């Protein structure tokens, strides 16, 4: 008996970046192009793998659409389990798509202002993908650390005093959050004697009262860690600062990282607390926290004049919306929430990439920007890339900005609107046994208001930038800068046009999330590949 070859694809999203990253370490910084090429090949590989996984998880390839991979060949609660279902696959796809855009964007300038960008980038992907894939709490911690460590490096990549101030904040807060994570995991282990999420879900009903208290404590502390990472008010003040300070391609990747916190909360909460002995625990807190975050993001968006912080608050709003939706606890909302997650991630990321190009309008020339940017880099100043000034560069910027703004504010016709509509529709048309409450209206109002705040704020920014600026010189744009933004926005368009199939897929993902028993059974029943007998100890 041996493992079907396709099965290894589950591992590829972790392994490929790891190997790429290690390989990139070996290549000298002098060979920019070679490094970039390897990095690009790695990301493209990831893209292909995640596409295949999206397909496999939605076909009959695996029972229930759940692919299980027993790392090191130890059965489920004991070894570490990687798991692909529709949700994971689609998140992997999102991550590789975003990575492609960020990487290409970083090609000409950002990857060269410091060393080891490409390795760190691949390791970041490894961490992100691992966090999506793993079904083991401590392994999740490890992948979070991989992701965070790489992000620390990338946030500080080519640092100046602003970036280091923000980086300090980001690092300290995440270090403290990591401690919370560990405390939480330890408590859960003390309570349930397991680290496997599926196993944990299976064990909840068998716990005695004290153990249940311990479990809840652990989950609460764990949630604090995730909620810090997903910037729930009042834990997320680091976010706008960090986004504004990080270099654009990195900030774009961070948009996704913020969502991982939400992703984990969603997974874990639905698995452990959707039914059984502790059903419903903590959902209210998530809901209220999400609402507070939403409100805070709205206020922040209205208040901020700086584009980086605006993007940050847009991300806060989307985090808040997602958390509130998860906390709202209505199964039919999850699918559309995922749709929202994808769209808003793409748009905010595109916006963050765009910002840097937009900023060039404001300075007399791109060279000036390069000058300030390079102020602190002495030994590794890349030569100023000579680009062709695209005619209509300004038009592109304006159009792209409009696209981002439409998605972020949820105005028609792009995916932001579809998501918002879907959300409202699902809120107003609850399934059987669910009722509309006052909280529905609060949520609805807050979402509308956040959209309004987005309109006001982004319009203010756009008008000031594109219309009010005197003697605007069209910036020099590289194809490598234009293409990624276009790609992300095209994905938003695609998401709109193909809203039906996309939403169907996500609904199926969400539905699977709520069938925790099948999930638990699926994970725990995955057989190990029998070991080679002659290789065993006598």
């Amino acid at each position, binding site marked *: 008996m041996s493992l079907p070859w396709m099965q290894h694809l589950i591992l590829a999203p972790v392994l490929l970046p790891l190997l790429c990253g290690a390989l990139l370490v070996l290549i000298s910084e002098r060979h920019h192009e070679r490094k970039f090429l390897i990095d690009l090949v790695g990301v493209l590989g990831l893209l292909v793998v995640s596409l295949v996984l999206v397909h496999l998880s939605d076909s009959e390839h695996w029972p229930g659409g759940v692919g299980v991979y027993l790392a090191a060949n130890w059965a489920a609660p004991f070894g570490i389990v990687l798991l692909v279902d529709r949700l994971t696959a689609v998140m992997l796809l999102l991550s590789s798509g975003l990575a492609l855009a960020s990487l290409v964007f970083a090609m000409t300038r950002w990857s060269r202002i410091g060393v080891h960008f490409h390795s760190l980038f691949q390791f970041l992907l490894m961490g992100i993908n691992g966090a999506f894939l793993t079904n083991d709490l*401590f392994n999740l911690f*490890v992948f979070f*650390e991989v992701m965070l*460590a790489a992000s*620390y*490096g990338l946030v*500080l990549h080519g*640092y*100046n*005093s602003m970036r*280091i*101030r923000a*980086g*300090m*904040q980001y*690092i*300290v807060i995440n*270090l*403290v959050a*990591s*401690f919370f994570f*560990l*405390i939480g*995991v*330890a*408590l859960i*282990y*003390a309570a349930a004697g397991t*680290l496997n999420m599926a196993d944990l879900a299976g064990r909840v009903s068998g716990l005695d009262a004290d153990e249940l208290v311990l479990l809840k404590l652990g989950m609460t502390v764990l949630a604090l860690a995730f909620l810090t990472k997903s910037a729930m008010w009042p834990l997320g003040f680091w976010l706008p600062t960090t986004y504004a300070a990080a270099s654009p391609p990195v900030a774009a990747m961070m948009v996704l990282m913020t969502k991982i916190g939400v992703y984990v909360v969603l997974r874990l909460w639905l698995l452990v607390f959707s039914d059984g002995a502790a059903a419903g625990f903590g959902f209210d807190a998530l809901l209220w926290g999400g609402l507070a975050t939403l409100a805070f993001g709205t206020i922040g968006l209205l208040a901020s004049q700086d584009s980086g912080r605006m993007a940050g608050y847009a991300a806060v709003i989307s985090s808040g919306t997602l958390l509130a939706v998860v906390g709202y606890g209505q199964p039919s909302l999850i699918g559309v929430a995922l749709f929202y997650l994808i769209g808003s991630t793409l748009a905010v990321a595109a916006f963050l990439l765009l910002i840097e190009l937009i900023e060039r309008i404001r300075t007399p020339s791109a060279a000036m920007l390069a000058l300030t940017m390079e102020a*602190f880099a002495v030994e590794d100043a890349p030569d100023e890339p000579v680009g062709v000034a695209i005619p209509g560069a300004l038009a592109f910027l304006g159009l792209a900005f409009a696209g981002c703004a439409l998605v972020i504010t949820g105005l028609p016709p792009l995916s932001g609107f579809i998501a918002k509509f879907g959300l409202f529709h699902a809120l107003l048309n609850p399934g059987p046994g669910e009722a509309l409450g006052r909280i529905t209206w609060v949520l609805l109002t807050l979402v509308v208001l956040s959209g309004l705040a987005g309109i006001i704020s982004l319009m203010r920014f756009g008008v000031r930038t594109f219309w009010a600026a005197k003697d605007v010189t069209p910036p020099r744009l590289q194809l490598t800068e234009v293409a990624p933004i276009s790609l992300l926005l095209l994905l938003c368009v695609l998401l709109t046009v193909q809203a039906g199939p996309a939403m169907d897929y996500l609904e199926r993902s969400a539905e699977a999330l709520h069938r925790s028993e099948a999930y638990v059974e699926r994970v725990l029943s995955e057989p190990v590949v029998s070991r080679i007998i002659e290789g065993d100890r006598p």
Partner: protein
Amino acid sequence: MEAVIAISIGVLFGSGVWLVLRPRTFQVITGLLLISYAVNLFIFIMGRLWLDRPPLTLEDGLVDGLVDAGLYADPLPQALVLTAIVIGFATTALYLVVMIGSRGLTGTDHVDGKESSK
């Protein structure tokens, strides 16, 4: 012994928290070190306290070649702590470099990179 280790974890954690809330970068790194001791110990004791029962299932200690799991300390928390120690070391190194980088660029060792206005 249980009480002693419990109190100690509390003291380490409390001292660490106090330091982490201070404004100077070095205080914060000291705090992070102390918190990491506390947290590592905390994870460790989730396997409960075992005296002279290291999880070494040496062949000469086995009865009929079988392992009696009740005779050994819980190895899992130990493995987790080992990972946590190494990761903690790594992050300390990183924070340290950011700390001196920040001092160099901003001219202050305040965690915000500027002295608070008060």
